[in-house]
């Protein structure tokens, strides 16, 4: 590993100043960054530890409803937070899928997002919750919808002088449920070869007021299955429609074949996981569901 300077600023402004110097990299949990530096997959001459900035390690309730999750807060602390556990159970569950207990005690949701792996487990559930990335940089602050943050495997739209400071979650309406399902060859300590998050909001007449379907590990970035969402929206959720939506979600996938799975297998998994996730959400919403 190349020699680097380690700094631990205590304010966002100081951190941005540090990020503007040389080849700097932000450090949150380090569970991705440290192996990448050691194996030469990323390079840095300045490591900017963000964990001493109070706002980056806090969860706040937003005045307009919803929640703001500090980018450097560990997955364990996010999953255990009472509001996250109660209102955003799919996000809490996804946080508990990141590596092992040891990894969850270090890894942050912000890091999982910024590492920009197509397989990032917390991202599909965050996208379904209409999350935005709150970004600070030398030229001020901006918000980017999470699904627009990714530019390719390992790449985000953040510029070199910018950092993610928090994830903003929209309020959860009544009659809403979200779930994230992934498939891994091993039960623990594995990377998803496909993942699907589904959210349904019901109108008072029990038709689908809003549908969100987000896919992991089946494209260069996390993907939305927009055609599948449109099939569901405005209709009464039922297994036949779920099967059509599952096929549409599989068509939205743009997987590659690699050592972990073939593209065809990944597409087939998206169909199955979408159908199962829709059934799980339907159960959570007390919809009578007779599987076809």
């Amino acid at each position, binding site marked *: *590993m190349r*020699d*680097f*300077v*380690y700094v*631990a600023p205590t304010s966002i402004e100081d951190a941005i100043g540090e990020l503007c110097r040389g080849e700097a990299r932000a*450090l949150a*949990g*380090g*569970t991705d960054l*440290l*192996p990448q530096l*050691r*194996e030469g997959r990323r390079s840095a001459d300045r*490591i900017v*530890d963000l*964990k001493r900035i109070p706002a980056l390690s806090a969860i706040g309730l937003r005045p307009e409803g919803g929640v703001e999750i500090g980018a450097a807060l560990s997955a*364990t602390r996010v999953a255990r937070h009472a509001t996250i556990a109660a209102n955003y159970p799919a996000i809490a569950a996804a946080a508990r899928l990141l*590596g*092992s*207990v*040891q*990894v969850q*005690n*270090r890894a942050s949701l912000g890091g999982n997002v910024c590492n920009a792996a197509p397989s990032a487990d917390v991202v599909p559930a965050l996208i379904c919750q209409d999350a935005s990335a709150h970004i600070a940089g030398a030229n001020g602050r901006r918000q980017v919808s999470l699904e627009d943050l990714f530019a390719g495997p390992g790449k985000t739209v953040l510029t070199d002088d910018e950092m993610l400071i928090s994830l903003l979650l929209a309020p959860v309406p009544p009659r809403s449920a979200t779930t994230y399902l992934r498939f891994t060859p091993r039960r*623990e*300590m594995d990377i998803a070869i496909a993942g699907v998050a589904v959210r349904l909001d019901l109108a008072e007449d029990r038709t689908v007021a809003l549908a969100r379907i987000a896919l992991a590990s089946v494209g260069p970035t996390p993907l939305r299955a927009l055609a599948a969402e449109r099939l569901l929206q405005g209709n009464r959720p039922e297994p036949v429609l779920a099967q059509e939506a599952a096929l549409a979600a599989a068509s939205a996938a743009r997987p590659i074949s690699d050592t972990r799975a073939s593209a065809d297998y990944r597409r087939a998994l998206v169909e199955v996981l979408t159908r199962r996730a829709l059934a799980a959400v339907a159960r959570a919403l007390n919809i009578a569901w007779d599987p076809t």
Partner: protein
Amino acid sequence: MKLLLSSIINGAEHSVLVDPRDTLLELLRDRIGLTGTKEGCGNGNCGTCTVLMDGAPVNACLVLALEVAGREVETIEGLATAGELHPIQSALVELGGTQCGFCTPGIVLSAKALLDANPTPGEAEIRQAIAGNLCRCTGYGKIVEAIATAARRLKA
């Protein structure tokens, strides 16, 4: 450039010169001489280097030494008191929960963090708690049994 780092390791304050690139694992083994913490994969997959940082299990290979400034670290050397094994350690010995022994320090610390937070874990909770600790010898059955036994003894 070396920097002075102070942290509390097994209850005692240590001030050591470290390289910014040193991991917590290198701090423990090479700078302080606590070689009970083992290095396995070196990239956070095997859990062999598990130690407790402010009571929570972490992979020492994925933490920079400088990140533990002012924090408390507990290693396997901190568990036995006055030559008396911790109940998790003695249960592993008695029930054959250790074979080659390389993963054992990490398993013991993951189990300790579990029992500190949850004195009566079920089998699934025990298996979940040690999911990040790979053992290639035992098949886990006897480890799980030993942790459950230690939990019962600690409660009694």
